[in-house]
């Protein structure tokens, strides 16, 4: 099986990695870079726990190959806070008690972050539709939706 030498920027840091053809971006982040914030809930594009930003847009990292990330910018949940300062969205999730077990939270944050980037003042329906690919079994979603609204009011992601 082919091994590919790739260069990828992850949370602002440039990385050089050798990845086998069948390695997913999710496996690369977790197993090669130790960025275990991004979760695997299904390996099939259904649950959204693996959602990361690639060139600013959310994708299911379980359905993308690591080699496809060559030359691109990847942002994971670990890249949302800066110098220990939480993003408005992270703060809002805490404030609304919109996290329980926390397994969906990294992917949820990434999807919501991307939404606020493209639609800074989303409607409730827009928020719901933007989060359809992120399953949560614990919270019932409403607090997450409210948290996104709060972050939007405070000026974005």
């Amino acid at each position, binding site marked *: 099986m082919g091994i590919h030498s790739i260069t990828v920027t992850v949370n602002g840091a440039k990385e050089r990695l050798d990845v086998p*053809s*069948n390695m997913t971006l999710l496996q690369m982040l977790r197993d090669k870079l130790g960025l275990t914030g991004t979760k695997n809930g299904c390996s099939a594009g259904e649950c*959204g726990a693996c959602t990361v930003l690639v060139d600013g847009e959310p994708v299911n990292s379980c*359905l*993308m190959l690591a080699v496809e990330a060559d030359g691109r910018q990847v942002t994971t949940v670990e890249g949302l806070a800066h110098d220990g300062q939480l993003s408005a969205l992270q703060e809002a999730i805490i404030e609304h008690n919109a996290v329980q077990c926390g397994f969906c939270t990294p992917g949820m944050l990434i*999807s919501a972050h991307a939404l606020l980037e493209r639609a800074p003042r989303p409607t409730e329906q827009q928020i*719901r539709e*933007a989060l*359809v690919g992120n399953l949560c079994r614990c919270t019932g979603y409403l607090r997450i939706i409210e948290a996104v609204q709060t972050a939007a009011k405070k000026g974005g992601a």
Partner: protein
Amino acid sequence: MLARPALPSFDYVRANNPDEVVRLLQEHGAAAKLLMGGTDLFVRMRDGVIRPQIVVDVKHLPGMRAIEYDEGAGLTVGAAVTMNQLARHPQVQTHYPLLAEAANSVASYQVRNRATLGGNLCNASPAADTAPAVLVLEGRLVLHNPQGEREVAARDFFTGPGQTAMRENEFLKAVRLPPPPEGSAGKYLKLGRNKVGDLSIVGVAVFAFPDGTKPSGYVFRIGLASVAPVPLRAWEAEEVLATHSPGEETFALAAEKAMEAATPIDDVRASAAYRKVMVRALTRRGLERVWEALE
């Protein structure tokens, strides 16, 4: 029986020109699979349905991710254009809102960032959500092959579940849609188990525009997904709408005909019987909505 934990081994090749793709297809036959967004390919590989030795990434070929609109020629969508790219493209929104609506109905936002129009059509699932729209917009699929290019009408493209008119040494380069007729309107209605994001139990696209040559004064086209081995047009229903003046009764009759055109199966998502009556319900609803927009 159950899916594997991860993808089986294969060799990834990033294709840089169309001839390389053709060569790889000829060389490896069924052992080579083409990759665009991978949202069907990787799922099927993990499920153990297919096990290619070589995966050829074709989305970086020239033109594959371009959307071009020309008033005379219509729309050309590169095969690897993603659903989100399509749904938010201003000219697609203006001139082909039905296509944007169908693209937007697929899966979730993050899947739509990878899922492509071409992949949806090439995968040829009966449930492909963009197929009914491409059918009623009378799209043509541009196939690249060793001889150059050929075009196949969408209506001739789907030949069975997962089967298309593409030959072994061909691949999809683009989808062409003719310019939208004056005064047209369209609607895609999808019934799933969740409100948003599920695969279709039934998908119905309705597209219509005024046409003085028809007895009814209108052309209506109806495309159906998830209710037959292939996505299809409801020709008899369209005939009813061409010959009867638009209104409640005609719509009911056309919906009945659309239902008759459906030959669904029972599966884990729904029974054939329910699917059939839902074709009728969604067709009528679609006709009413489109008619409102036309008036």
